[in-house]
């Protein structure tokens, strides 16, 4: 008997590209003979989906991998599989999770015809700034059961008549005898930039407006000419962090003025329903569309998967889950990020300064740091307890900019709270837990397999035909603001009755009963402060909000569903602390059949578009302007690196290649990226440009 449905993976990531053929599948594996080298990309089973019939007509392994097609990037288009929680009527033993297939449907007395889908995605980047609901760009497929390829048409009240933004396509894959599983494919948009009819006053030069299409009616909406810092009043306290990350120009007062550009990024919800007799079973999954992973053989140090695991399981790791492989993976990911950074430059720019470098400059050459990280990997392979937990930055040390503290790991990178980057508390606990083991034990276990209770396996489930970059561990999470998602947005509604800012304790909205809290700041939850001390190199101190993920890890782990005392203060000179009991809302959807949490972010926590609303607009702005390199695994910095006697030499990734190689060349401009990113930006494999 089918008790419930699931869509796996619960969060799937698509990646832009305007080439007609989606990217072929590959596996990313560590070379067992060269464990210190780059991960290998091995071509893997790729589904050939006939868009006319909706059927998978072939499965092939490509001879070689090509990320582009005629100069255009091949999009990553994930499949979302439907799984069924099955078992006897009492669900004895918890049942099992198995793929929903035509055979299983038939056994239930149902058929494919009893399935319905609906996909809702949105781009809320503009409304996030303007606050005008008519600036929402929303696409709703409506309910469908056929297998046609359906466009997701992004519509907006403030668009010109007959104008829209394509946010991608979805297709219900027609099951066949060879491929009987129920699945849907989400294909993202092309990564285009759209413009506005307006011409903001005070622009230093005419807006080139070299966009794919002009869609926004500046006479209707205020996106064109929008300022986070208005000329005639105080800033809206709810502006994004970082602020002013939209395409535009700086006015005479150095306030950033929007050109009114939009992109075709989005996130949303995929729903499936199945009628089984007189029952209707429902499930949903989440999707998002973001830029390509330009270093597909590298994984971010801290990913959306790490955030989800901490939110699901808490900051403390069970000993059975604390394996050497997982510690090695963290070290490897650190290695993969710094390997793509010009660490000599970031030693004085990445949260440092020319006068106060983060580390002794003799130590930070890229090759030298590579060697150091390789030595860590070598030592871990011996089963030596990870000794380096001592030099990891604790979650409450993110604001310590004194010289010794800035050297802690991860170094040279920014965190989600704009301070120094930390790992999640769970990642740190993993390292410490493993460090406690090797003196006394032999071997280790690793539990895998999609089961009803193995939420980790569900979270990381790689649907058949899906690339590794469709999963949340490929998405950078140290969000300031992020790339695929601004994952800080999942914390906004963690307390029932109020809505917080994604990066601070500022109360943005509240239910009527708590309306007095709007405009105040949450500084304490039960025994846990939301603030940390920020200490400058000269010793002066201040306070700042910690990133929610680490600050609330224990609250979510131990008090979900409970009332907790929450203390708020006023931003005025008289803090006037006020403590209110609020209930901690579950972050994850609940399985009624199993009476337990699933691995799926609940719909109340984030509506379509809300996981991406505070990202840069358009996304290429982030590439051009971000001064942080915690995401070098996604956006490389330093490539084609060679050793010389004087140190390493290489190319600047986001610039034209020069001969001889040099890092000192200008980045591609905003306009070059907006319209030419597919041709200009190169995929990097093994640290080198992929021609």
């Amino acid at each position, binding site marked *: 008997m089918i008790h419930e449905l699931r869509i796996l993976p619960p969060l799937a990531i698509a990646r832009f590209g305007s080439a007609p053929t989606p990217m072929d599948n590959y596996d990313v594996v560590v070379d067992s003979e060269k*464990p210190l080298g780059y991960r290998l990309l091995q071509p893997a089973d790729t589904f050939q989906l006939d868009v006319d019939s909706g059927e998978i007509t072939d499965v092939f392994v490509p001879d070689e991998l090509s990320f582009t097609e005629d100069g255009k990037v091949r999009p990553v288009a994930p499949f979302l599989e439907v799984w069924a929680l099955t078992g006897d009527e009492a669900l004895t033993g918890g049942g099992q999770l198995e793929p929903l297939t035509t055979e299983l449907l038939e056994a239930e007395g149902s058929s494919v015809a009893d399935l319905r889908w609906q996909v809702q995605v949105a781009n809320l980047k503009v409304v996030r700034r303007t606050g005008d609901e008519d600036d929402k760009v929303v696409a709703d497929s409506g309910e469908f059961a056929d297998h046609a390829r359906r466009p997701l048409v992004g519509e907006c009240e403030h668009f010109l008549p007959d104008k829209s933004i394509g946010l991608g396509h979805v297709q219900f894959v027609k099951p066949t005898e060879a491929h009987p599983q129920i699945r849907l494919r989400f294909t993202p948009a092309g990564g285009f930039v759209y413009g506005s009819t307006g011409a903001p006053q005070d622009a230093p030069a005419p807006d080139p407006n070299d966009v794919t299409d002009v869609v926004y009616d500046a006479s209707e909406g205020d996106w064109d000419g929008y300022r986070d810092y208005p000329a005639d009043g105080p800033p809206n306290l709810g502006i994004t962090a970082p602020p002013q990350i939209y395409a535009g120009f700086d006015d005479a007062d150095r306030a950033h003025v929007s050109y009114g550009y939009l992109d075709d990024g989005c996130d949303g919800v995929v729903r499936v329903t199945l009628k089984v007799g007189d029952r209707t079973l429902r499930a949903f999954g989440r999707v998002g569309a973001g830029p390509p992973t330009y270093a597909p053989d590298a994984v971010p140090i801290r990913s959306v998967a790490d955030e989800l695991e901490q939110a699901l399981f808490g900051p403390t790791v069970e000993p059975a889950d604390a394996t050497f492989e997982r510690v090695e993976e963290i070290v490897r990911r650190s290695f993969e990020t710094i390997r793509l950074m010009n660490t000599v430059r970031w030693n004085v720019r990445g949260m440092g300064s020319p006068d106060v470098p983060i580390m002794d400059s*003799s130590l930070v050459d890229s090759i030298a740091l590579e*060697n150091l990280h*390789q030595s860590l990997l070598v030592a871990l392979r011996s089963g030596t307890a990870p000794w380096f937990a*001592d030099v990891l930055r604790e979650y409450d040390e993110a604001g310590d900019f004194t010289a010794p503290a800035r050297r802690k790991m991860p170094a040279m990178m920014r965190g989600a709270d704009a301070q120094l980057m930390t790992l999640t*508390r769970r990642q740190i606990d993993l390292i410490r837990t493993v460090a406690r083991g090797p003196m*006394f034990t032999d071997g280790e276990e690793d539990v895998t397999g999609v089961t009803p209770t193995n939420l980790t396996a569900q979270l990381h489930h790689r649907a058949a035909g899906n690339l590794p970059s469709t999963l949340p561990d490929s998405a950078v999470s140290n969000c300031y603001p992020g790339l695929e998602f601004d994952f800080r947005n999942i914390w906004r509604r963690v307390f029932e009755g109020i809505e917080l800012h994604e990066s601070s304790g500022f109360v943005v909205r509240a239910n009527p009963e708590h309306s007095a809290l709007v405009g105040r700041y949450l500084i304490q939850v039960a025994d846990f402060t939301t603030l940390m001390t920020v200490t400058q190199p000269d010793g002066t101190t201040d306070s700042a909000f910690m990133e929610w993920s680490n600050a609330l890890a224990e609250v979510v782990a131990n008090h979900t569903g409970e009332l907790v005392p929450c203390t708020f203060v006023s931003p005025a000179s008289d803090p006037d602390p006020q403590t209110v009991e609020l209930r901690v809302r579950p972050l994850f959807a609940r399985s009624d059949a199993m009476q337990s949490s699933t691995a799926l972010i609940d719909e109340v926590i984030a509506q379509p578009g809300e996981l991406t609303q505070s990202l840069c607009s358009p996304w290429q702005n982030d590439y051009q302007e971000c001064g942080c390199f915690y995401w070098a695994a996604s956006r490389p910095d330093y490539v084609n690196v060679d050793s010389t006697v004087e140190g390493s030499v290489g190319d600047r990734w986001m610039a034209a290649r020069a001969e001889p190689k040099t890092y000192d060349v200008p980045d591609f401009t905003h306009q070059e990226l907006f319209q030419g990113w597919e041709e200009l930006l190169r995929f990097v494999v093994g640290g080198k440009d992929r021609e």
Partner: protein
Amino acid sequence: MRSRITRHLWPVLDTIEPEVPPLELNGRDYAIFLLRLAAEIEHGLMVQYLFAAYSLGGPNVPLEQQGTVRAWQETILGVAKEEMGHLVTVQNLLTALGGPLQFNREDYPNDNVLYETGFRLEPLTPPSLATYICAESPKDWETTNPDQARDIKREAKLSTGGDVNRVGRLYEELIRVIGDAALVPDDTFAETNAAMQASWDAWGRGFRQGAAGRQGPDAPDDQDVRDEHELVIVEVTTREAAIGALEQVGEQGEGFELPENEDESHFQRFLKIYEELTDLGEDARKALIRDVAKNPTTHLNGPDVPRPDVAADPDKPDTTSAITNPEARMWAHLFNVRYRRLLVNLSHAFELAADQSDLGGPGPRGTLINRSFAEMYNLRSIAGVLVGLPLDQAKRDDERAGPPFQMPHSLMLPHDEPDRWRLHRDLLDASATLIERIKTADGTGAGQDYVTALAQADQIERGQLELLIGGVPPEPGGGP
């Protein structure tokens, strides 16, 4: 101890009326002599402590004791790290006075100024701890805690066959000598020296007081190791700085006075472990410590090694334990090569610091510093394998092998820079031979993943070395 050392040590040993400086030396030379002796002692202590730390653990440790044993190991490793800091600071002092660096020491067992039987590599026991405590004890220990001092000194004496001298005496003499302008004139010190010395920035690795050894706010209470050790790495360009550096080193471990904070000094940390260990019965203690052989060596035919048909006397600490198990021998040889690489990287890094054109930028010096730390990690890794392998070819269930820490035939660096890089390459060649034998040997299979990774790391480094030697550039991207 070599007579060329002991004949100048009367002021320290107080056996006859001291004449300072001793005949044949002037004041500066005498200070350099003492500093080089201090370097040998710091080096010897560090290795001794590392060995003791590696002997802890094993599959027989009861679950309820694992937290305690782990805490002991981290504490002793922390002390060893601090001794490394002392060693580096002593090199800075030598540089400040214009003396040659000293990374050399005698193999184990050896006699030295501290006590008759000298340094030994042996598993952690109450007698060995008693020895460490006495060596690190403060001057007024007998006054402030006479019963404790008496009992522990007696135990140490039984173990070593004689009184155990305090390391602090050496530092007291150093402070006296360097503090005397008549012995060490003002013009001995120069500001320009600083660039030639090791800095905390380069060598500190993020370990500062309160930052190292802590388990963090999320650690379970019973495993909250507040071992807040600190690396003392001090640059010295003035007499005051030199005295300050010596005082810091002394306060941290060699004990001028009983510190207020019981976690501060090496003396107090060893004392705490001693008290916890002696509270246990002998059988309980045995379960916590691996049965690692004393003074393990790869040397089979040396004069201090009994003939194969004569068993080593376990009660005679001045004998060595030959590693005869073939698999363990290969690992022990690999350990020695990597130990030599550590010492060569260290001394080469100090030599490069003397090159004014190589200051402040990335390049070979930074790589050498990083590689020094890489070799420390390797030593820990290989030691972890060795303490799990049998010592004796015939007795597989008996004593375990251990890291031998045997000194190389020479620590002298070639004069020319390319030749120095060739020496690094020579050591990689030697390592490659041993790795290949380990990989193909018919043994337990221990450490195979590790040597595969190590071989690749060495191959990458080799490519970079070829560039420095002036040969073929490495593959683009830095290696395979």
